[in-house]
Each structure stands twice: as C-alpha cells, then as structure tokens.
C-alpha cells in the first residue's frame, strides 16, 4: 500500500561499534558539555557495565560527576525529581542514560526538569509542551530491544494521581545513541531472546502497518535481516561481539522504523497483557506476533510476504510462489519462536506463560481496544476480533 503522505525524522547520532563508549567524551565536548551524570539501575551497575563507561572517560580529561544507580523497573515522577535535584546539586551539565527502557524514560524526564528548571514534571506532560532544546543527552542501551534510544516519547508514572504520564516531543530525542557490543555481551540468553523478538516485532509492525513509508521500510527490513541472521548465532556463542553488535544495531534500526511508522495490534495486545499479568514486554511481543500477522494476512498478504526475504533469505524467497510468501514468512517466525522456546522456554502461547487465566481474555481484549497502537493496525479490530486472536494465542 502506498501512502499519499508521510513524515520521517531521526536526528539521533548513532555512535556504534567497537570502543564506541570511548567516543562519548569527545561527543560531549562538541556539545559544550563536560560534567556528565550517569543514570542507571542496580542490575546494570551490578553487572559491571558502568565500569566500561567510566573506563571510557580515563585519559579523556573529563570525569563523570555523578552516578545515580537506583532507577526502579517502573519509574515515577518521584524518582525523576530526586535525580534532578542530585543533578543540580552536583553541577552536572549533561546526562548519560545507561540501561533499558525504564532508565531511558527516567533520564528523559530528568532532562526535562533540569533543562526547564522545573520541579513539577506533570506540567510538561503531553504533546509538544517542550519548546526548546534540552541538555546534552546520550543513551547507552544495555539491551537490544526497546529502541527507546531513538524515540521521542517517555512514559513516567505519577504515583500521586495514579496515572502514567506521557511525554512527546522532538526535544526528548537523545543527541546520540552509543551502541557498544560490551554493553550487551553478558545479557542472559532468555533476555537476549525476548528483547530481540521485541525489536523484531517493532520492525515487522512498522513494515506491515498503516504508517509504513519507504524510509522506515528500509530500516525495518534491515533490522529483520540482522535479527534473523544473528539471534541464533548470539545464543550459540554469547560472547560473539560482532553478532551482539548486529543485534544492537537491529534494535536501534527497528526503533527508528517504528517511531516513524508506529506499531499495531501485537503491541495493543502486548501492552494489555503486560499491564494485566505483569509479563515482560518482549515476551508479550514474541507471543502475539504470528497470531496477529495471521489476522492481518488476508488483507496484507502481499506486504507480509515481502518479509520472507529478510526472514528466510533469497533462496527461500525465490523458490516460494508469491501467493504463499505471506504464510511462509509467518511460518518462519513460528520456527524462530519454536527454537527460542526450545532454548530459553520463551512462551509461544498464553497458556505457556503459566500466568494468564482464560477468564482474563475478555478484559485483555477490552484493554487492547483502548491502546493507541490499535488504530495503526492495517485491519480494523473490534472486541470480537481481539477475543478471537487471543483465543488463538491461548
């Protein structure tokens, strides 16, 4: 389907490859910053990953001024305010987020407060509230999945009001995303698998959704190819730095794709399942992906069929008749999931999670209908449709 109009935007500098971390001091200097604060969580610090970042500052003539390492898995305005105070008290002038989705969103919130010189984060919630560039902000992802290093949104819980506050602004985009294979080298197999399937889903939904455009398509296809070619390699040889870097790049490319094309029903269902049953996002993505593609197949078979090339390679693509490529692409994804289940017990169905009861299906479907991503699904979805997909995923 050709779009009559599209927009594409990604001003984030990608700093990727071996010794990428050592580029951070120079990159900070180019933005007239020299007193960075690192924001991270206990898990990242415990794994020794902050040592790599600190090591990169040795011999650079620049020091990390402050480290906050207690970002919780579900961050809040309280934590953001606390970190902003620390930033000000220490005289920092820039932020380096080292971690996954929660650390990155928290850091975006901190950057709003310290740049706008505010204390009430709720005042900046919404679309387009920010009107000027924020402080220099770098992101060093420690998982290869969320793509948050290239997205312009942050979601932060407000415990006082009991709501999740959305923040959307081009000014939330980091100045640079630093992809260094050292940062994902020790990621356990099941997290590697989950996060890779999260990135895979970003790319697949960006490519098959209503918001697809030629530029995001290019990123999506490359991301799918990299994940297909390198995920099993990483699981076979976890310390393969080149393959790890490929996955990290794929995650960022998928992030660029979906932040410009949005996502669809896999995310609507996945957000609901994650919220209701407290399951990790990547697991939910892996679980629903083939069922949603099957739901969309009748109307989007041609587009889904194009995914067979990056998923299975040129030979398989060439010998599969065009009319069968959509089904073959879905089957290839199923094979990847079967292999991940065999290796890491990554659930392929709601029943395999062991944490969902059948009587929750109605509620899950209702929640999915209110998720913003559902509007970008190429095929209309009503309550009965959502229930039907969930039943198939049972």
């Amino acid at each position: 389907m050709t779009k009559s109009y599209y927009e594409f935007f990604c001003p984030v500098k990608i700093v990727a490859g071996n010794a990428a971390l050592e580029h951070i001091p120079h990159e900070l200097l180019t933005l007239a910053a020299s007193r960075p604060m690192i924001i991270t969580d206990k898990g990242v610090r415990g794994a020794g990953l902050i040592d790599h970042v600190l090591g990169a500052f040795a011999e650079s003539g620049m020091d990390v001024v402050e480290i906050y390492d207690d970002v919780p898995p579900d961050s809040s305005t309280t934590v953001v305010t606390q970190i902003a105070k620390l930033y000000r008290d220490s005289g920092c002038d820039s932020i380096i987020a080292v971690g996954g989705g929660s650390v990155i969103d928290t850091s975006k919130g901190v950057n709003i407060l310290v740049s706008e010189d505010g204390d009430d984060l709720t005042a900046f919630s919404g679309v387009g509230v920010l009107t000027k560039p924020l402080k220099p902000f770098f992101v060093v992802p420690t998982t290869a999945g969320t793509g948050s290093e290239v997205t312009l949104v942050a979601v932060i819980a407000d415990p006082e009001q009991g709501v999740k506050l959305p923040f959307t602004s081009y000014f939330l985009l980091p100045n640079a995303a630093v992809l260094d294979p050292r940062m994902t080298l020790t990621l356990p197999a099941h997290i590697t698998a989950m996060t890779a399937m999260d990135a895979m889903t970003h790319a697949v939904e960006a490519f098959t959704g209503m918001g697809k455009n030629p530029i995001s398509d290019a990123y999506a296809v490359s991301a799918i190819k990299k994940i297909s070619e390198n995920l099993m390699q990483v699981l076979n040889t976890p310390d393969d730095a080149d393959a790890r870097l490929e996955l990290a790049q794929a995650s960022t490319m998928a992030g660029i794709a979906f932040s410009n094309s949005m996502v669809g029903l896999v995310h609507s269902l996945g957000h609901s399942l994650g919220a209701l049953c407290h399951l990790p996002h990547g697991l939910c993505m892996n679980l629903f992906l083939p069922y949603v593609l099957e739901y969309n197949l009748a109307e989007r078979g041609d587009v889904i069929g194009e995914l067979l090339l990056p998923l299975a390679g040129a030979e398989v693509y060439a010998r599969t008749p065009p009319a069968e490529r959509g089904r073959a692409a879905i089957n290839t994804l199923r094979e990847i999931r079967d292999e991940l289940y065999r290796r890491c017990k990554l659930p392929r169905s709601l029943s395999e999670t062991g944490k969902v009861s059948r009587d929750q299906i109605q509620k899950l479907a209702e929640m999915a209908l209110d998720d913003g991503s559902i509007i970008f699904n190429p095929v209309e979805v009503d309550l009965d449709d959502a229930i039907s997909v969930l039943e198939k995923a049972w």
Partner: protein
Amino acid sequence: MKQLPQLNLGDFNIGSLNIGSLKRPYVALMMDVIGRGLEAASQVDSTIQREVQKLPDGFMFDMRALPSGPSLVMEKTADGNLSYIGSEAPRKPDMSLKFKHLNHAFLVVSFQEGTARALANDRILLDGEVAHAMKLVRCLNRMESLILPKFVAVRALKRYPQLSLKQKLSDGGKIYSRLAKNLVWG
C-alpha cells in the same frame, strides 16, 4: 499523446479542486454537523452509548484545525450522553484532536481520509489520554457508518461494519431527525 480526461465518480477527488475559499466554511459547517450528529448518536445508538459510558463524567474534548479553527467542542453530561457545546471550549479540554492544517481537517470531514489514516499520515496531533481518544474514534466511525451511504463511509473506514437494513434505517433515521431538529431549533 494527450490523455482524454475520464469521468470516474469513484475516484473523484474534491481535494484537487480549486475551492480554497470554500474550505473554511465547509469545515466549520461539517464540524457543527459532526458535533450535533455525535450528540444525537449518543442518544440513539447502543454501541456509541457503551463507549461513552466508559468516559469520565464531565469529560470534555475538542477537534480543531490549527491554528485558529474551525473547531467543535463536546462534553460528556451527567446523563451519560455527549453534548455538543459549540466551537469554543469554556476550559482547556481533557483531550484534543488537532489537525495540523485546515486542508487536513477538510480531507477528514469530507470523508476522503478516515481518522485512522489521518493519524497514520501524521496529519493530527493527539493531546490527552489515548484510551479516551480511541473510544471517541470508534464513536466517530460508528456514527459515520450509520448516517453515511456505504459508498461514502467505506472511504473513511478501515472496515464497514455489519449493519442490518433495520439498524441503518432506524438508528440512522433517528440520528438524522435529531440532527435536523438541532440544526433548525439550535
């Protein structure tokens, strides 16, 4: 070789006509019609009523073309219906659908582009609770499917719903009669 123009009403694109000066009054009129139509539909159609029921009482939303309108403002009343307030909001609405340009609003209110497609084409800014926005988009879609001829509605909707002739005539007729009454009597 010069191609002869073909008359194909199915592909007829009013957006390509030079009707610039008419767009603003047309969008203003259609905003008014949509506002009154939604109000009427929320009193008549059980599907829309179920959606509206889930919105908080007093919930106010607007739909406007940037930078200065036209616009429509609606509120959920205590009796569970949607009430059309007019073109100006008495306070900051809880949710806002903002078309980036008058032309983008024109595409949607002339049913050349559905709300979902307009969102996917980055023509609309959504400010507010997304879950509420999804409910309202479903209300809009439902109203369009009830009051518009199928050949028009299919251009604006991803999927035309299964509607019996009775539903279409009965609910659609009731909405039209309330809409006409509203337009005449204010």
